[in-house]
């Protein structure tokens, strides 16, 4: 079952460069929400040794020295370009699994195995010419190997011109290649597993590939066992065309400035609960409970630390913003302690299930439920038409003024070049 993993190169940075060619050849990082950590790095920045997820405040010095350009993340832009890339790639196979914002699997079953590498080159050319984003293609018999092939294509370890087809490599070549790659590069092998594997003298991809399956399964899990099988050409993971419905919806963010009072925290919690409820209705789901989390800034080690979460069950599953906000606020009230400066709050909707076909409880009033459904439909329709947060639950605060202290910090966000008529690129 040959398949391809197509992955955009430094995707967020590539998006920024497309509309701002001045960034070409310069060291660029894109920072996470609130300008917290590096979530995308240009090759120039990678060469400076800056790691993924490194907090921005910890790289100020090196940034100044090397004139690193830091940008706030611009998800409107990345989302639009991602949809274009995925649409172009969908023409190359009848089966596509969009795995993340910048990568997808394509089923290549039935294609002539001799031509797959050329086919990969056509994908690369098409995406580059139509959307302008550079991608790399990894081709192999399993998802785990395709991920690895993509890694090799990107690093230039194997294949050529950004395409690597393991099907064209001999067993001898693969062994040599895998013996030179750290086990941490394998899909699904995180830091903890890597450390444990290292203690067992499993250091490279080849070590893991030739490890005893029974031993891995007993020492770790069935999941890592599957990884070993996949490294040995045994497909265990199928291409999933339809995304499985979300099991939980999480909205959380750090504040631009530290927040002390319950009323300000309440605003942020209400705002996040509203946003989560919107996502819930988009999915056509209802939630059975809502979890509220608050914590202080763990990087300020000298300040008193506090962290609490609480799950608030709902009397019956709902997608009603006002009920979810009320539940979240009651949870917040229960866990709030004064005297701390809070850095982050979050809400998570749990126990999600499809909205239709719910068993009504004895106390549900169908007429009232219909009214709520109408109200939510109107709320969503107005916000879709008039812009985000045009109409919102009063508890989440006014759009200007009060909210500013906890609102997200996005100091250097580029324009929404492709999704806002007022922010289009300009040509002189």
């Amino acid at each position, binding site marked *: 079952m040959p398949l391809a993993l197509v992955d955009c190169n430094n995707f967020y940075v590539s998006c920024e460069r497309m509309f701002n060619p001045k960034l070409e050849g310069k060291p660029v990082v894109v920072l996470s929400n609130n300008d917290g950590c590096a979530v995308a790095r240009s090759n120039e920045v990678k060469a400076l040794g800056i790691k993924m997820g490194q907090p921005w405040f910890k790289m100020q010095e090196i940034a100044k020295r090397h004139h690193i350009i830091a940008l706030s993340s611009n998800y409107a832009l990345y989302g639009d370009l991602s949809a274009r890339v995925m*649409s*172009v790639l969908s023409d190359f196979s009848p089966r596509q699994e969009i795995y993340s914002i910048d990568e997808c699997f394509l089923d290549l079953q039935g294609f002539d195995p001799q031509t797959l590498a050329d086919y990969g080159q056509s994908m690369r050319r098409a995406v580059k010419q*139509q*959307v302008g984003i550079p991608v790399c293609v990894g081709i192999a018999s399993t998802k785990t190997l395709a991920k690895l092939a993509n890694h090799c294509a990107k690093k230039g370890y194997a294949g050529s011109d950004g395409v690597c087809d393991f099907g064209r490599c001999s067993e001898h070549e693969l062994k040599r290649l895998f013996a030179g790659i750290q086990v941490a590069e394998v899909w699904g092998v995180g830091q903890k597993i890597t450390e444990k594997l290292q203690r067992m003298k499993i250091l490279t991809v080849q070590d893991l590939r030739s490890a005893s399956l029974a031993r891995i399964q007993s020492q770790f899990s069935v999941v890592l066992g599957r990884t070993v099988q996949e490294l040995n050409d045994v497909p265990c993971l199928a291409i999933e065309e339809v995304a499985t419905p979300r099991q939980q919806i999480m909205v959380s963010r750090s504040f631009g400035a530290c927040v002390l009072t319950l009323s300000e925290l309440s605003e942020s919690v209400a705002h996040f609960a509203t946003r989560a409820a919107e996502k819930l209705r988009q999915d056509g789901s209802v939630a059975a409970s809502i979890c509220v989390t608050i914590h202080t800034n763990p990087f300020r080690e000298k300040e008193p630390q506090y962290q609490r979460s609480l799950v608030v069950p709902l009397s019956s599953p709902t997608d009603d913003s006002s009920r979810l906000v009320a539940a979240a606020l009651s949870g917040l009230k229960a866990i709030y302690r004064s005297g701390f400066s809070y850095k982050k709050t979050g809400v998570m909707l749990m126990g999600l299930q499809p909205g239709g076909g719910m068993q009504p409880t004895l106390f549900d009033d169908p007429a009232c439920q219909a009214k709520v459904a109408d109200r939510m439909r109107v709320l969503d329709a107005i916000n879709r038409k008039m812009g985000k947060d045009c109409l919102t639950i009063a508890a989440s605060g006014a759009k200007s003024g009060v909210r500013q202290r906890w609102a997200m910090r996005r100091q250097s966000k580029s324009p929404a070049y*492709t999704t806002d008529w007022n922010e289009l690129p300009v*040509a*002189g």
Partner: protein
Amino acid sequence: MFHSLQRFRPATVLQRFTLYGHKVAAGFPSPADDYIEGRLSLDEHLIQHRNATFFVRAKGNSMIGAGIHDGDLLVVDKSLNPASGDIVIAVVDGDLTVKRLQKRGGIYSLKPENPLFEEMLFKEGQELQVWGVVTATIKKFI
């Protein structure tokens, strides 16, 4: 014809919303029914390659000879191969610029459509980066 549409109004409050959609056309069927072909779409007219099409705002007067004025909306297709004579978006010193692409005697140039502006010549070895081909310009009067 439309005033003959009727709404069925059920008696109980609880059922009201579920049956609202049922409209019964009691009049003569529209003679145009067989000829309905859908509305014309400007997207369809202006956009050949959806994934490759971007909008760019024109600035300044360098292209007024080609009918492109300050503030006009340019429809740009990135997937087209630029040919001599096309109006293109090019990258010059890191900025986007709209000009006419020309090739004369093996030399490419970016030609403004306004005598007050100068033509940019690209000799062999000099890189000319074309960002996309302008396929249409849109002006709004109101």
